[in-house]
């Protein structure tokens, strides 16, 4: 589903190469995890895939279902089925969470040539999806992420994911700032969305999230490249030996 080949990326404003040839394939139905030390380029990869400004692709390609992601505007990537759960969800005062969700959902439907959902249909859907994540009517009415706790923000990201039903979900350090209970809620939300037509790329520092969201493949990223890939056991190895040992091993 997601195919990244030899992706090279530098910062637009500085002469600093961040990604130095990333190769990664995530087939439909699978969950892949990317682990790696700070500064290895994990978050940059997620931003470049979703189209954030400030980066310049200097080589390679990234395709979603055979379509060139890098040619698309961020909103086109979203309509094509890509979703990024932010590490730091953005607060938008004065815009109700519900308004935000409905605008986003209908914009994507419109872009895909589908009918927009009526107010009643939308309300039914958002209540149902919110319930599973313990997001009540009050939280839906509040301005987007304003005054939300860390856990509420991350649950809100997963709610958006569950409403928008993307094909390819990227979770950027979704576990940061979560307590044990919130981590379980978020993980349950993600697991509920797992299916044969959907794939996940889970970026995390720690193995603990992967206890809840069991990956099919674990990749280790270092210095702008995927340096090692393996099964779920690779995450345990990282947890036990740290990155240093592992990186020394791959040279």
């Amino acid at each position: 589903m997601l195919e990244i080949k030899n992706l090279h990326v530098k910062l637009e404003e500085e002469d600093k190469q961040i990604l130095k040839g990333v190769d990664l394939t995530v087939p439909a139905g699978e969950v892949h995890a990317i682990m790696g030390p700070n500064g290895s380029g994990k978050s940059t990869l997620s931003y470049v895939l979703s189209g954030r400004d400030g980066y310049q692709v200097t080589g390679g390609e990234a395709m979603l279902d055979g379509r060139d992601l890098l040619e698309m505007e961020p909103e086109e990537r979203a309509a094509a089925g890509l979703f990024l759960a932010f590490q730091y969800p953005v607060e938008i005062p004065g815009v109700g969470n519900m308004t935000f969700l409905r605008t986003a959902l209908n914009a994507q439907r419109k872009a895909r040539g589908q009918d927009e959902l009526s107010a009643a249909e939308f309300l039914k859907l958002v209540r149902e999806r919110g319930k599973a994540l313990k997001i009540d009517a009050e939280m839906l009415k509040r301005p987007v992420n304003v005054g939300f706790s860390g856990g509420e923000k991350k649950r809100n990201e997963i709610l958006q994911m569950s409403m928008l039903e993307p094909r390819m979900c990227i979770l950027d350090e979704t576990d940061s700032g979560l307590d044990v209970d919130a981590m379980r809620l978020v993980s349950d939300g993600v697991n509920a969305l797992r299916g044969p037509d959907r794939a996940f790329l889970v970026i995390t520092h720690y193995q603990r999230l992967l206890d809840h969201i069991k990956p099919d493949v674990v990749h280790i990223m270092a210095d702008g490249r995927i340096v090692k890939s393996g099964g779920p056991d690779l995450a345990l190895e990282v947890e036990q030996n740290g990155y240093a040992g592992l990186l020394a091993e791959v040279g």
Partner: protein
Amino acid sequence: MSDTAVLSTSARPDRAGAAPRVGDTALTARLAALDLPAGGFSAPARRDAAARLNEMGLPGPRDEYWRYTDPAPFNAPRPEALAIPPREATLFDDIDRLKLVFVDGVFDAAASDDLTGEGLEIDTLAAADAGGDHWAGALYGQLETAGQNPVRRPFAALNTLAARDGVLIRATGRVARPVHLLYRRSDEAADVHLHHVIRLEQGAELTLLETGAMGARSNAVLEVDLAAGARFHHIASKRADDDKLGIGHIFARVGEGALLKSFALAVNGRVMRNEGVIEITGDDAVAHIAAAVLGDGDEGRFHHDDTVFITHAGQRCESRQVYKKVLKNGAQGIFQGKILVRPGAQKTDGYQISKGLLLDEGSQFLAKPELEIYADDVKCSHGSTTGALDETALFYLRSRGVPREQAVVLLVLSFLADTLEEIEDERLRDGILTRLDQWLTSRATG
């Protein structure tokens, strides 16, 4: 010592009996172009205004509070002719309200609702001024006069002198229906002066709505006197085809435990100057004044100036000034806001925020916040920012599939949101928000 104190002490003696700043000829020409009414109950106030105006003269670009807005188009004897816009539905058509229509600044009884039986005394200035004594005689021009110190406001004095019409409202209880002043134009070159006087007696409550275009050039004064516990809500909406050249004034006196909330929405237009002068005289009173402004310089020069002066004379009073301006294509937004806390006005809670959102590099937002405090137990804060759209927020919205233009609309609404919070009536607030949303969306996608 404050700047304004310097201005008022040094500037006045120089000019006593001497030529005003721009020169007598300018003022003489300005007055000669007007058909000045003699007035009935208002005659003494008009004579007084004439004398004060003669002493002050018209403002010049060197005046402390006219540095950012060129007074020339207001000083000119006559406005340029301006095409009459097509008549549009107003923001408040769906609301049960008492509608008063003014055409070129003259009350149009046939187009207005019946003024009797609303549980309030309501007259037009023109009709009342043709008769004998009137309750408004004790107020007409009085709050305007008081509001001239320490900052001179020559156009307000000119209005008291020249206004032929307006509405005079006195309420003693809660007035259920809002009073809607609807302005229309028919003469392409009308130079309009409207002067409204509102007196809310103890515990009375009134909502005043204003929409439409007053004239080719307009000068409005709204005097509001709030007795103890009175509550006054004010919403004014100016759209692109409304006033293109106008100066508006609110002079308010807020008594003990009284509340004033004024919100203005301005969309495009040309050159606008709004002066808000609020004196909180009683204890435990509340005064909020806010504006949401959207200016596109592509549709003619856009220059929008809010100049506010709030005086705290009572104890434990709260004031808020909330001004947000969204500017693009070379539009200019100005905010000059002052909080003056008089000696003894303890426990004052004064707040002022002004923000400019610049959608391109050619636009400009200028802010001059001032605090002058003579009491020691007060809480006053002010802030002012100018900036572009938050790129991170824009990316967040787009990453959810919201197209860029629509994301900008959402972020503009987000930016303006806390001005709308100043409207208490939820229905009116939602109505304005919906219209704003529709307007922005049609612009973004049209």
